[in-house]
């Protein structure tokens, strides 16, 4: 029984840790998609954020400056995407694909210059994002150990849950959110009502890059303490999947990200102890997602103008 509770604690901890970066990126993806811009470049923006966050934290010694700079690096690539897709009406998939090549390409080249290696130097404990409540509950009781495991998560995790609430509020309770969602559904109607679709979308895509950058920084500044070329690989796409899974809503993305996080957590616990095949266990999250989609979620409503460039003169 004690063992079980212990494992449960570790799974919950791992769920939170793995879900955090996905959730940042997922919230970012929500902003972009809901305003009507497909952002497949999340992956590249995360990579840029991961590298920048780690490097700035390494040189300044302050994790929070690094974290914010990670976001800004993501926002820079978000801005590139916005210039191409919103201002110039480019095909959003093509531009996103370009971002996915440029982001990793540029940062890994910089890594080569700074560190003479594609990996950065690991962060020390003070350069990492802090674990707020580590060891708060004492280790003498089972319950204490359980709580310690769960609450050993990093500050970025607590922040992201606050962010989900804030984003939800912005989406559904503010004028800005209403206008943003309208831009994704029927931009021309918005324009006739005096909403500036172009600047609205531009802002949302930049914001989406910023959040994706924060997500990337979470990956390399918490559990793994260094940036490597394979730090992000695939996580941006998983975040996009989680958002589609959640029907383009922040609260839905939360569920999707926790699902992926939970499966990753399960992998950590099962993989270490039992005779299960690692590769088969790793497959679980993806199969579960498909099954959940079939059984519970079904057709998702894609914002009507999603993916269509908006050109003002028409």
């Amino acid at each position, binding site marked *: 029984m004690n063992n079980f509770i212990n494992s449960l604690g570790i799974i919950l901890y791992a769920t939170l840790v793995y879900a955090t970066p996905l959730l940042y990126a997922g919230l970012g993806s929500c902003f972009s998609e809901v305003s009507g811009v497909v952002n*497949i470049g999340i992956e590249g923006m995360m990579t840029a954020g991961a590298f920048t966050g780690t490097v700035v934290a390494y040189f300044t010694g302050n994790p929070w400056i690094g974290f914010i700079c990670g976001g800004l690096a993501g926002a820079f690539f978000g801005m*590139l995407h916005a*210039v*191409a*897709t919103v201002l*110039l*009406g*480019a*095909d959003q*998939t*093509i*531009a996103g*694909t*370009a*971002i*996915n*090549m*440029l982001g*990793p*390409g*540029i940062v*890994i*080249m910089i890594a*080569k*210059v700074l560190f003479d290696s*594609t990996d950065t130097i690991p962060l020390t404990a003070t350069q990492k994002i802090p674990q707020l409540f580590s060891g708060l509950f004492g280790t003498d009781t089972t319950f204490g150990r359980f709580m310690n495991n769960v609450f050993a998560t990093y500050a970025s995790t607590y922040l992201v849950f606050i962010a989900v609430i804030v984003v939800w509020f912005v989406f559904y309770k503010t004028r800005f959110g209403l206008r943003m969602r309208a831009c994704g559904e029927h931009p021309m109607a918005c324009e006739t009502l005096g909403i500036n679709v172009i600047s609205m979308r531009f802002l949302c895509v930049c914001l989406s890059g910023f959040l994706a950058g924060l997500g990337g920084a979470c990956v390399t500044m918490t559990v793994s303490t260094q940036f490597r070329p*394979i730090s992000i*690989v*695939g996580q941006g*796409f*998983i975040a*996009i*999947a989680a958002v*589609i*899974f959640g029907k383009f809503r922040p609260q839905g993305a939360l569920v999707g990200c926790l699902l992926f996080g939970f499966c990753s957590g399960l992998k950590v616990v099962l993989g270490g102890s039992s005779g299960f*095949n690692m*590769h*088969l266990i*790793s*497959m679980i*999250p*993806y*199969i579960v*997602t*498909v099954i959940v*989609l*079939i059984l519970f979620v*079904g*057709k*998702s409503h*894609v914002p009507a103008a999603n993916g269509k460039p908006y050109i003002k003169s028409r």
Partner: protein
Amino acid sequence: MKKKKSFLEFVSDNKFIHILLSIILGFLIGAIFLVIMRLSVGEAYGRLLKSITSVKGITYVIVYAVPYIVAGLSVAFSFKTGVFNIGAEGQFVVGSMAAAIVGIRLGTLPKPVLIILCFLAAMAVGALWGIIVAFLKTKWGINEVLSMIMFNWIAFYLSNFIAGLPGIKSDGSAEATQNISDNASMLFPKEFIKKMDFAPTANWGIFVAIVIMIVIYIIIDKTTLGYRLKAVGFNKNAAEYGGINVNGSIMTALAISGALAGLAGALQLMGMGGRISIFSSQEGFGFAGIVVALIGCSNPFGVFVAGLFYGWLMYGGSKLNLVGAPTQLINVIVGTVVFFIAISVIFSNLKYLFRKKG
């Protein structure tokens, strides 16, 4: 003045020129990065060019290009039919593994039979991977981009799992499958390679790629099937109104696209690797296919040339570290090229440049 204007108009309206300009800009941005990094532009680009000055180099480029061409054709075909096959990656992986299983377990079959069997297995499994996604979409309305991303990862871990099974895994300590039987290898005869001074992995794959290119061109442009698929891609509702079975068309399109990606996987295995390693991350052939399709404007012949271009950059890029330049330079160049292709509208507007002033 008049001559200049017509030249600008020519540049503005020619899609081929847009791509050429994008490529030039890609190399320019790459050069800027090299300068910032205090590396010699001449040395790095010289190294890239030098890689195609010998027979050996050129054959290497062709060998590298084959899987990119076929993966690019797969994605290009999906683009033409209105689906974005981001799942080519997974289809490539399962196709490659299917060919490996056939190539290892049925290794005693005569060469032509075995090679064709490997191809068929790869295409069948790749098509299946595409059909599953299409089925999920048409039956339950599940977003295809989402399920393709999922199936990419399922394929990845499935391949890793199969590579570790007894009877498939290599007998030595290598974390990889056994080598496929010599009967399944598509390499040119060794003496021939030596005599012609070809790359040691020179193989028949390029001819398969050429055949596929022509077949895809014919399907898209010369058959009613292609017309139907394009109609669905262009406007689903109109196609349905016109009596076209939309769901069936989506299935067919993804099956063909998947079969091509699977075949690309087989060609990569039988022409180059000879075995499949247990990877720690996705290899990215399918994603490269997306890039190749974009550079080639989704036109079969364009994709062929774009695949060769990409193969050249990949081969040349692998030599860049010899002159101290990072291999990642290639990603920056290609990324820039794709970015400018995305915003090629700026080239179309060049012709208004002088009109405004006047």
